[in-house]
C-alpha cells in the first residue's frame, strides 16, 4: 500500500516559489491501476517523482508499503527504489550510447544480479515487449514506439511491485500509444501496481481509478467500473 498524508512540495528559484504539491493525501492499494490527470504544471510529475522515491516531500508523510520514507536519505531511497520501482518516461529516457539489450540491463546492474541471470531476464523482458530482434540496435535506430517498448522492458525486467509511467504515450502516435496501454494493462493484470500520469482521457479511462490534480491539490477522485 502507498499512502501520502498531507504531502507538500515546493520548488524555489531565486525569484519565485512554486508550490507543486499542496497538502496532498492519497492512498493506492496493491495491484491498483491509477491514472493521474490535470493540466500542465498541476504537480502530476512531482507526485509521480515522490511516489517513485526520486524526490522527497517537504512536508507530510509518505508510507511506501510498511515504511514512512518522507525523511529517508538519498541512500536509503536508492536502496528501496532499486528493489521495488520501475519507471516509464514520456521521453523514454534511454541511454544513447547503450544498445537496446544494455539499456534494459541497466535496471538489473545495481541489484546484484549475476550476469547470466541478467542475460536471461533481459531476453525474456524483450521477448515480452516483442523487441528481441532489435536487441543490438542503438536507441536512435528505433522508432518512438519501439523506444517506449524498450523503456517498458527496462521497467519490467526487475520485476517491480510498482510501475510509474509519466505520460507514457505522450510522444507516440495512436497505434503505438494503444500498444503501450495494452502492455500496461497486462502488467497490471499480472498483479503489479501501476500509476500513470496522462493527458489523454481515453487512456485514463483504462485505469481503475482517476485522480485529478489542480494547482497542487487533489480536486477529484473517480473510481471506474472494472
Amino acid at each position, binding site marked *: 500500500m502507498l499512502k501520502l498524508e498531507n504531502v507538500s512540495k515546493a520548488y524555489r528559484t531565486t525569484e519565485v516559489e512554486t508550490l507543486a504539491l499542496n497538502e496532498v493525501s492519497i492512498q493506492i492499494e496493491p495491484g491498483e491501476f491509477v491514472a493521474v490527470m490535470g493540466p500542465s504544471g498541476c504537480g502530476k510529475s512531482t507526485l509521480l*517523482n515522490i511516489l*517513485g522515491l*526520486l*524526490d522527497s516531500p517537504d512536508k507530510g508523510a509518505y508510507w511506501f508499503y510498511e515504511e514512512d520514507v518522507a525523511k529517508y536519505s*538519498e*541512500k536509503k531511497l*536508492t*536502496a528501496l*527504489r*532499486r*528493489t521495488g520501482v520501475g*519507471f516509464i*518516461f514520456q*521521453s523514454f*529516457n*534511454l*541511454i*544513447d*550510447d547503450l544498445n537496446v539489450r544494455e539499456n534494459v540491463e*541497466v*535496471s538489473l*546492474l*545495481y*541489484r546484484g544480479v549475476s550476469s547470466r541471470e541478467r542475460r536471461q531476464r533481459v531476453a525474456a523482458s524483450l521477448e515480452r515487449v516483442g523487441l528481441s530482434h532489435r536487441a543490438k540496435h542503438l536507441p536512435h535506430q528505433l522508432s518512438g514506439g519501439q523506444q517506449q517498448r524498450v523503456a517498458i522492458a*527496462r521497467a519490467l525486467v*526487475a520485476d517491480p511491485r510498482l510501475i510509474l509511467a509519466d505520460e507514457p504515450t505522450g510522444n507516440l502516435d495512436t497505434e503505438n500509444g494503444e500498444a503501450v496501454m495494452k502492455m500496461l494493462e497486462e502488467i497490471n493484470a499480472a498483479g503489479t501496481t501501476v500509476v500513470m500520469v496522462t493527458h489523454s482521457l481515453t487512456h485514463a479511462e483504462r485505469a481503475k481509478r482517476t485522480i485529478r490534480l489542480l494547482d497542487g491539490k487533489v480536486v477529484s477522485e473517480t473510481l471506474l467500473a472494472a
Partner: protein
Amino acid sequence: MSSALIAALRNLVRNRLYAAINIAGLAIGFSGAFLIALFVLDELSYDRFIPGHENAYLVSSSAVLPNGEQREYRVSSPTLAAWLKLKFPQVEAVARTAGANTVVRRGNIEGQENITTVDPDFFIVLPVPTVAGDLKNALRRPDGIVITQSIARKYFGREYPIGGTLTFGGGDEMTVMAVTQDMRSNTHLQPTSIFVSNSATISPLRALDISRGKTARIEPFIATTYVRLTPGTSFDPQSARPECAKAGACSETFALIPVADVHLHHFTSSAENTRSPRTTIRVLCALGVLILLIAAINFVNLTTARAARRAVEIGVRKTSGATRIRLIGQFIGESLLYSSLGAVMALGIVELSLPAVNAFLDRTIEFDYWRDPQLGGTILALVILAGVLAGAYPAFVMSAFRPAAIFNTSLAGSSGAGLVRRMLVIAQFSVLIVLVLMTGVIYEQIHFAMHEGMRVDKNQVLLISVGDSECLGAFRKELARLPGVLKTACSMNAPLGNGISLDVDIAGGSRVPLRQSIVDFEYFTLYGIRPIAGRLFSVAYATDAAPTDRESRRQPPLVINATASRDLGFASPAAAVGRSIHFPRFMTMDGRLMPGPAQIIGVVPDFPLGSIRRAVEPTAFFIDPVISRNLNVKLNGRDIPETLLAIERLWKDTGHSGAPRSMFFDERLRQLYRDVRRQIQVITAAAGVALILACLGLFGLASFIAEQRTREIGIRKAMGADRPAIIRLLLWSFSSPILWANLIAWPAGYYLVNRWLQGFAYRIELQPWMFLAASGAALGIALLTVAAHTIHISRARPVEALRHE
C-alpha cells in the same frame, strides 16, 4: 560580420567557464612557446650584436693524439696570430686573448675581477658596443684598460671615468681609456669586466711573447685567436698548415669558425660534454611545438564538445542563407579572437616570469616584441597559426550541421567529433606520460651517476686545482698537517677526468689500448679503493714514483684496474701481479713518449674516471710526482668552514695570491652533469606546463561530459544506481583514454628514454615500474582533476538530473 562578432562575444561571456579554460589554456601554451622561442632565438643570436661579426672568426686548433684521437680546441698557439697577419693579405686584423683574474683597487674599494688580456687590435676584430672613449686605440699603451659600465660605477661611481686609474694586484696603475656596455649573456666571450693589453705585466701572453725565438718549443693551446677578414674574402686553413708548421708558428692544424657560430660549435676537446648544443635547441623546439599542440587540442576539444549548444544559431544562420564558407570564416575568426586573448595574457605571463627565467638560465634575454620585428613577427605568426589550426576542425564540424537535423532532434554532438575528441585526449595524455617518464628516468640516471655509479668514497673530498710540482711543495706538506684534513693525494686528470689512452703490445702481436692515469701514493686509500690483487703504491718503496729526471728511462711500477688485467690477457688479477708489460709512458710535460718495460704491482677494482657516460676503460695508474693538476683532500667532515678558511690562509702563507681554486667532489660531479641537470629542469618545466594544460583540458571536458551525461546519470539513479556506482562509472569514463594513451606512450617513451640512456656507459635498467609510475601519476592527476565534477554529479538527485530533459 558584426552579428558574428556579437554572437562570438556573447557566447564567450555566457560560457565564462569554458571561455576562461580556453583562453587560460592558450595563454599557458603560448607562454611556454614564447619562452622557448625567446631562449632559442637567444641561442641563435650569439655574438650577432657585434658589428661586422660576419667577417670575424675564431681560430680553432686541432691536435691528433698519439693514439689517433683528434680533438678540437678553442685555443691555439700564441704565435699563430702574427703569422696569419703576415701571410694572408685578406686578414685585416688579428688579436689573441687570454684570461686572468686579479685584485683591483681604487681607494677603499677593492674587488676580485674577471680580466681578459687582449692584443690592441682586439676591438678592431670584435668591436663590442662602447659608451665612451676611443676603443680602437685604447690598448695601444701598455697601461691602458677598457672597463665595463658596471666597473665604472663600482670603482668610480660614474659612467665615463676616462683617464681615471685603477691599481692592479701587483701594484700597477692602469688608466681607463674606454668604457664598454656590460657584457651580454649571448656571447661566447668569457665574462669580463676589464680588458687589459697583452703587453701589460699581468698578461700570461707577455712572457711568451718576450721569450719568443729563444726556445724552439711551441706552447700550443694557450691563446684564443681571432681574425677579421676583408669582407668577401677567405683562405683555406688546411692548405696553410704545412707552411705554418714550417715557419714554427704552429704545431697543430687550425680552422676558422665564424664568431656567431662559436657558441653552437661542438668542440670535441670538452670530453665531459658529449652532446652538441644544437641537440638541446632541437629538443626545446620539439617541446615548444608539443606544448602549443596540447593547448590547441584543448581548444579543439572544448569547442567541438560545446558545438551542439550553438546548433540553433548555426541552423538559423544557414536557413537565412549563410554559406558554409561564411560560417567557417566566422568560427575561425572566433578562434582567432580566443588565441589573441590568450596571446595577450601570455605576453603578461612572459613579462612577469622572464626575470626568474633569466636568473635560472643565467641569461639577459629581453622581450622587446614591440621593437624587435623578428620577435614580434614570430609571435604574431604563432598566434595566427594556433588560432587557425585550432579553429579549423571545429569550424569544419560545426559548419556541416544540417538545419533540418538541428531543429528536429536534440543534437547530442556528432559521434564523429566525439571520436576525434577522444583521440585527441589520448594524444595529450600520451605526451604527458612520456614527459613524466623522461623526467623520472633522467632523475634516476643522474642520481645513479652521482652515487652508486661512482663506486668510490667521495664524501668530504675537496679538489684543489694546483700547478705542476705543487705536490712536492710546502703547501701540500702543511696542508696534510691541518687538523681537519685526513689525507691528501695528487693526481693529473683523475678522479674526474681522463688521461691519454695508448696502445700496449701484448703477446701474440696484438695491441690493447691502455689509459694512463697519474696518481699519488695516498690516492687509492683516500677514495677507499682496496687492491683485489697485489699491493697499492706505498712510500715505503722508493721506486714507486717515476723518476723526476725527465731523461731517465726507468719506468715506474703500475697499478692496473680489473678491465686492464683482463684485456692484457692475464688469467686472473693475481696472475697479473709481478708481470711486466711494454709500457709507452706519455710525458705530459713535453708531449714525448717514453716506452719501456713496467712492472704491475697491483690490481684494483674498476671504478669510473670522469663521467659515467664513458665505460670504464682499461687503465694503468702510476705516480709521476712532477705532474699534477688536482690536489685531492679528504676532510674529516667536522668544522668544514674553519678547515676551508685554514686552507685559504695556508694558500696565501705559502706564497700564492688570491684564494685557491677548490671545489668539493660532489659539486664537481654536479658540474660534470650540468647539461643533464639543465635537461631535467627544462623537461620538468615542459612536463609541468603540459600537465597543467592537459588537466585544464580534462577539467573542461569533464564539466562538459558531466553536463552531457546528467540525463544518463538520472536514468541510472532512477534504476537504482547508488552514488559509488555512479562515481565508478564516471571515473572509468575519464580514465579509459589515459589507459589507451599508454599504448602510445609506453613504446614512444621506451624508445626516447632508451636512446637518451645510450649516452651513458653505465646506466640504470629501465624497469616496468617506471612506466607504471608515470602512467599512474598521469592517471592520479587526471582523476584528481575530475574528482570535483564527479562527486558533484554523483550527488545530484535523480529528479534534478532528469529535469534537464
